[in-house]
């Protein structure tokens, strides 16, 4: 069996019966949940620590470390699943929810035992009406079998899972906004610290984990943390779901080793660029992450490599001046949500950049001035440039607005708007400048 053939999560994608509890159990499902109930919290936490599992929601934060922040004497701990998947380019959690809902439920049972959780919530994106139905049906099956509710599997563990639907707000994917929304309010992010692991839902310690993160737990319990770490690379354990869209012959969701490079992803996994054209840019982890130019695609799409590999240029504020990520760090790119957007050489980068910026301007929650005003200005200037009305100085203006947003906001949406903007300008500056040079001028203007 080749490395590409190992599957942790996606083995039963495209098998409709996989949604039923019977099929899932026949394939070994819920064995890990039973085992977890007998293992106890410390033993599970130790396996997860050994697994090098890192969060698949965007930040790549080590899962065991996040869990360890929950105060040991907490009376109530909540588990909340982030199923809000709305980072443009990302469509892998939706596959798990639709094709393999029991795997998520089983992963939640494992996490609940490890964290001593009695009540868990799944915050699912409102638009996912189809997935909501499938998930609810799977939960009903699990309740009917006694795998959820009081004394699950006849053990002393009890767990209730409730699905909570979002209503269309990208910002609710940010974990503190998600909690504000789940409490029944506007999806406004909260300042961190305190982190949700200490003070989250209704003020209680709360672990927010992504769907894919949790879906890995049954495998880790079954095979051990070390086996999961061995499948991975460096400090990142396991495989990864990658969703690929844009100008490739075979877009879709693929579960891949973390050693796969951008070029291998396009050529070997996705059948190359459509029409035999050439690649012009690749966004590696959802639109919040800096774009990669064609000569930066030989780096593995792994968390640390994308942040540190010197083959990827550092993002600049203007030519020669590196963007300051704080703490003397520079920014290359990040693995983010695993949403890969491939752009071929016919793409107008200025229009692609505008559409991404426009998205952030639409979705800013409006709480902080730099983000609310800044994303609006960015969108205006980017639109001007992209649609041939750019003015002299607009390229520098775009960069300075972005630089003014980054690092100055309550939540990371501000950075998510600034980083890709600066990366597009760093790597395709000529194109932006040419657009401005060739802009239509009103009659009589200089």
């Amino acid at each position, binding site marked *: 069996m080749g490395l590409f053939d190992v599957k942790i999560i996606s083995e039963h994608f495209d098998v409709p019966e996989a949604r039923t509890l019977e099929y899932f159990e026949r394939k070994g499902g819920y064995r890990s949940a039973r085992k977890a109930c007998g293992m106890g919290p410390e033993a599970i936490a130790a396996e997860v620590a050994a697994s090098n599992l890192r969060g698949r929601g965007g930040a790549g934060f080590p899962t065991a470390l996040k869990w360890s922040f929950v105060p040991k004497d907490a009376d109530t701990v909540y588990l909340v699943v982030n199923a809000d*998947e*709305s*980072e*443009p*380019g*990302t*469509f892998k*959690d*939706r596959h798990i929810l639709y094709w393999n809902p029991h795997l998520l439920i089983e992963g939640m049972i494992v996490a609940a035992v490890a964290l001593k959780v009695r*009540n868990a919530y799944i915050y699912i*994106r*409102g*638009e*996912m*009406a*189809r997935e*909501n*139905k499938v998930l609810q049906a799977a939960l009903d099956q699990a309740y009917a079998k006694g795998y959820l509710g009081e004394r699950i599997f006849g053990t002393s563990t009890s767990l*209730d899972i*409730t699905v*909570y*639907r*979002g*209503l*269309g*707000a*990208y910002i609710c994917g940010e974990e503190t906004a998600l909690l504000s*929304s*789940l*409490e*029944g*309010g*506007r*999806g406004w992010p909260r300042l961190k610290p305190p982190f949700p692991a200490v003070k989250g839902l*209704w003020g209680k310690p709360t672990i927010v984990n992504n769907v894919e993160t949790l879906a890995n737990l049954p495998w880790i319990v079954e095979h051990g943390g070390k086996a999961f770490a061995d499948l991975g690379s460096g400090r990142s354990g396991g495989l990864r779901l990658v*969703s*690929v*869209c*844009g*100008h490739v012959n075979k*877009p*879709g*969701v693929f579960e891949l080793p973390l050693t796969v490079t951008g070029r291998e992803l396009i050529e070997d996994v996705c059948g190359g660029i459509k029409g035999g054209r050439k690649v012009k840019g690749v*966004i590696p982890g959802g*639109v919040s992450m800096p774009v990669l130019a064609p000569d930066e695609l030989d780096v593995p799409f792994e968390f640390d490599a994308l942040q540190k590999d010197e083959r990827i240029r550092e993002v600049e504020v203007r030519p020669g001046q590196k963007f300051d990520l704080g703490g003397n760090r520079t920014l290359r790119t990040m693995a983010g949500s695993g*949403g890969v*957007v491939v*752009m071929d050489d016919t*793409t107008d980068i200025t*229009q*692609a950049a505008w*559409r*991404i910026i426009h*998205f952030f301007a*639409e*979705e800013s*929650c409006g709480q902080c001035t730099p983000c609310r005003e800044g994303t609006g200005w960015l969108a205006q200037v980017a639109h001007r440039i992209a649609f041939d009305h750019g003015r002299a100085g607009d390229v520098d203006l775009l960069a300075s607005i972005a630089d003014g947003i980054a690092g100055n906001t309550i939540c990371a949406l501000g950075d998510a708007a600034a980083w890709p903007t600066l990366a597009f300008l760093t790597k395709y500056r000529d194109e932006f400048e040419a657009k401005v040079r060739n802009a239509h001028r009103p009659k009589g203007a200089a």
Partner: protein
Amino acid sequence: MARHPSFRARKAVPGKELSTQIEARIQQLWPRFPEGRAGQALCLPVLYLAQEQHGHVDAEVVDLVAARLGLTSAHVTGVATFYFMLNKVRPGRYHLQVCTNIGCQLIGAYDVFERCKKRLGVDNKGTSADGNVTLTEVECLAACGYGPVAQIAEREKPEIPLYFENLDATRIDAILDALAEGRVPTELGS
């Protein structure tokens, strides 16, 4: 049916009330939240169901929901105006929502969207003169590999758990034709 103890007398809103299905859902969900938190936590789900019943969320619906859940109308208004999926104005019979975000943009979403605009004679967020279709440009629907993608809602009807994927001129024409005939082309959805 035994009312949950938290039930508060409903402020009378002439001609409008929350359906018995909504009441049943409230009773079902209420115990899923901790003591004293359920009323507010149910704000989103109840607003969504109330929209399904009444077509959109206006001041009357806000008052109904606020009174039932023991919340201030100001809080419910704040929520109702924050979320995109809650219609502040009454949409057409069908609400056609087309994703134009990056994944879909790259493979022709704006062509599809422009075609919709032209055929319906509307701009973004506009409703066709006959009141049949409201057209809205939406953000990424998490189906980027199968784009361009659209979603359809029918006013005062249960939601349609389908996406309409891989749109091109032919497929969007077929969808618009069906909507004009007063029918959601579920056979084109997945």
